[in-house]
Structure formats: C-alpha cells, structure tokens
C-alpha cells in the first residue's frame, strides 16, 4: 500500500508542478489544485499509514495518529479558500488584461503557445 500511496502522491505533485509552469491562468489554477491534493495526501501519510486501526485512541494499541488528520483538515479548508481566490483573481486578470496569460502579454504575440 505504501508504494501505491507514494506513487499517487508523486504523480499528483508532478502533474501539478507541470501545469503550474504553463503560461495561461487556467492550467496554473488546476496545477495549484493538484499540488494541494498531493500536499494533503503527503501530510496524511506523515503519521504513518495504519490499516484497520481505530480513528481515535480507545484503549487498543492499533490506532492511527490523529494529528495529521487535523492538519489535513486545516490544509484542505485553507487550500479551498485559496483556490477560490485564485480563480477570481484569474478572471479579473482576464477581464482587465484582455487575455489569460500569466504575464498579461499581448494576444498577437508570435511565440504564443498553449
């Protein structure tokens, strides 16, 4: 399970990073979202992965670390708010600049790529 978990986190982070380096705001926002998913998964695994353990301490020895769960919850809330803000900012930039390039470049630019 550890291997599958690590690969999933890695692939999410790599895709997020790749999309974040794109030139238009939409892929960048999607990239940020993917990166924050990867972060959440990573944080979650930091208490050690437990299979079939209880969520809280109930006297048995096999329980999962509750702290990463609390951290992930906070990180999800913050990440969600930040994504909402990034979307609004990107829309505002599209409206003000007349294009959706991160650098706000002119539309007739020759080197323009997607």
């Amino acid at each position, binding site marked *: 399970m550890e291997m599958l978990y690590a690969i999933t986190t890695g692939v999410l982070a790599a895709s997020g990073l790749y999309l974040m380096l794109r030139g238009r705001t939409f892929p*960048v926002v999607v990239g940020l979202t993917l990166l*924050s998913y990867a*972060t959440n998964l990573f944080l979650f695994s930091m*208490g050690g992965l437990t299979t079939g353990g209880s969520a809280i301490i109930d006297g048995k020895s096999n329980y999962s670390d509750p702290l990463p769960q609390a951290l992930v919850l906070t990180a999800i809330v*913050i990440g969600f708010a930040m994504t909402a803000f*990034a979307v609004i*900012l990107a829309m505002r*930039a599209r409206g003000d600049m007349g294009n959706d390039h991160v650098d706000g470049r002119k539309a007739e630019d020759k080197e323009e790529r997607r």
Partner: protein
Amino acid sequence: MSHLIVMPIVLPLAAAVALLLTRFGNPTLKRGLGLATTLALLVISIMLLRQAAGGEIQYYALGNWQPPFGIIMVLDRLSALMLFVTSMLAVGAVLFACGGDDEKGSNFHGLFQLQLMGINGAFLTGDLFNLFVFFEVLLLASYALLVHGGGKARIQSAVHYAVLNLAGSALFLFAVGLLYGATGTLNMADMAQAVSQLPGERQGMVIAGALLLLVVFGLKAAVLPLYFWLPRAYASAPPPVAALFAVMTKIGVYAILRVYWLVFGDQAGPLEALEQSWVWWLSLGTLAIAGIGVLAARDLRLLVAYLVLVSVGTLLAGVGMRSPEAVSGLLFYLVHTTLVTGGLFLLADMIGVQRGKAGTRLVRGRIPRNATALGLLFLIGSMAVAGLPPLSGALGKVMLMSAGDSAQRLWFWPLLLATGLCAIVALSRAGSTLFWRSQASDDGDSLSPWQWAGTGWLLASSPLLVILAGPLAGYTEATAEQLSDPQPMIQAVLIDQGGDQ
C-alpha cells in the same frame, strides 16, 4: 493570568470583523476604528516589550492545553521587538491611508487589520503548523490589499504574487509534514529537543524538511533566486500597503532566525546550523543583484522596492554569519530599515501625486508644489536608507560589519559598501531629477495632513533611532544572547508548568 500576550492577535481580529460588517458605513467611523485599533496595538506592543525586556520567556497556552500538545503563543525578546516594529509601521501606514487612499476601494481598514493579525500571529506563535496558518492569514489579506483600488499593473503583479505564494504554501506543508514525520511534534521547542535525540536514519528527512522550509522562508524574505515577484508587486501596490509590506520580507528573516536558531541550535548536534552556508552565499548574491537593480530602476517606487531587496540581502548576510554579534546588529538594522523603507514608499507616492502626469517616473517633469518639505523628507529618507553617517542606517551597517570574522568580512565589506554606493548614486540621481532638473509650477494636487503625518512619523524614526541607539542596541544584544541559547526556551515551554494560561 496575563491575557496580554494574545491581545495582538485578538484585537485586530475583533476590529477587522467590526470593520468588515460596516463595509459601506461612514468613512470617518471606519478610519477612527482602524486608527484607534492600530494605536491600541502600539500601546500593547510597548507593554509587551517592557514585559519581555526582563528576559523571562512567557507563553500563552490557547484553551489551556499545555505544550507540547496545545498551540502556544511565545513571548520572548525577539517576538516583542518584531511586534513593536510592526505596530510602529502600521500606525504610519494607517495615518497615511486616512488621507484618502482607503476610499479608493472597499474594505481597506478591515483587510489591513486582518493582515496585522496574521503578522502578529506569525511573530508570536511557538508552533510550526500554526506559523503556516498565520502565514496564510497574512497572505490572504495581502492578496486583497495588493489589488486595492484596481488597475492593470496591480492585477498582473497580484497574479504572480498569489500563484508564487500558493506554491510556497504547498512547499511549507510538505516541509511541516516531513518534520512532523521525523520528530513527532510540531511545537518548535519540543522539536528542538526531539532533534537533539534524533535516530540516525531519520536525519535525512529532517534535513530535507529543514531545507524545504528554508525555500519557503526565502520566498517570503525574497532572497536571490526567489525575489522576482518583489519589485513589481511592491512598486504597484497602493502606498500604505507597500509601506506595510516593508515588514513582510522581515517575516521571512524572522522565521529563519526563529526556526534555525531554536530547532537547529547548538543542541542539534550534527544538524546544527545546517542552513548557514545557503543563507550566507545567497544573501551576498541578493545584495549584488539588488545593487544593480537600484541603479537600473527608472521609477522612484521601483527604486525603493530594490532598496527593500538591499535590506533583505544585508539582513540575511547577518543571519548567515551566525554569531550573536551579527544577530544584534541585524536586529538594529531591521528596525531601521523597516520603518525607513516604509516611509520612503509613502513619500514616493506623495511626490508622484504632486508631479501629475510624470508620476514617480524618473523623468523631467514639474517640480512638486511642496518641493522644500518633500525634498527635505527625501533627503532624510535617502541618507538613512543609504547608510550615511549621522542617521541610523550607518549605525546598523557598522554593527553588522564589525560582527563578521575575517573570512566573512572579505566578502561582506566590499559588497555592502558597493551596494551602499549604488544606493547613494541612484538616490542622488533620482533626487536631482525630481527636485532640480524640472520646471517649477504651481499645479499639482495638495496633500492631506494625514499623509504628511504618516510619512513624517515613519521617517522621523531614523533620527530617533540615533538618539535612542544606546538602549536599542542594549536590547538587541540581550535578544541575540537569548536566541543563541535554546535551552531556556525549551525549559520555559516544556518543563516549567507554572506559565500563565
């Protein structure tokens, strides 16, 4: 018993909520509330400063959950000093904003208080994850403040600023996760103890986490490869916001000092000072680049933004020297540079308003109407920021220069002095263009007394710092001494259970 320690966070939060509720209310009411809160914060921070000056480390356990299980706010000399600088700067910025900048968009005062809450929280917290939360609070407020008033330049720089900082937040979480995974705690004092008893196979994780954390703090502090967002964002931000942003880079410097002197202090064994060579060389690079940027700037606001970068390079070089003398010098310089660059951002806007169409661009235009008063303020601000002798910049630089050992001096002295020269050349060129090589005219908008008060408040700090140099240097020396030994902090937070709740 004492709830004073948590007041710098609770008070701006309450004020911000009240201000956001009266969003469309009477501007005078909002200004009064914003100003009153900021002044109250100044009073509280002075009280905390006096409380911390005794050298006792106090903490406030939120919800009375004792450390290392609960989140704590820690008050020591360093955090009290940073709170004081922030509230001094905030008073100047709010005074200036009352001159009319706050009504150019909505919610200025509310967002401003939220940002103050984030900044104060970041300075007070003793918990690594809580530091992340307060970073997010101050960043979210700063995103909104950066686009206050709108305009293409602001939106565009805000896109860069927001995306970069969101990526930085993701890295921060990775780093926190790694450190938690390796040490099993988030409380910084507890982590310092855990690092000293670290099993060998977890060392790699801690090193990776610590250096990732350095990337995040470097992004906040705007160190060499991570500074590209800064000049454009600071130059396009509304003036009171740019002034408050003068303390934002210092949060990065503070975080580096706090984390690496406490967690990776002398109890950490092989992991001690693992950030030092990175910070040292990158700070020197930042100084060099910033010197070139200062010379190349064609706009007064951009010039001041590069001066912020110069101060970041200087401060981080002090961190990179990693000696108590250097920390003492850098804290003195930090107080000076934060207040003076904040004042210069305000002054640049006042000059720009009076020059009409030419704005702050360094081209021939018309002479500002209040040329004598503005010119005098510009002279004081430039001399202070470039580090010319009678004012406070020179004192801070001398303290830093005398702190390095001989190998460090070889690199630091020429670079610092050359950057100072760049600043002098650029500022005198800018000043003569603005005030002499222009046509006199009687046009130009008049400036509100609030704006004069805000700028005067911040720029007057430089001569005041010279007069009060003795007590301040004594305080920064004591701070450096307190920082250099992590044991009292660990004991105060973990073993002593008699702390205030």
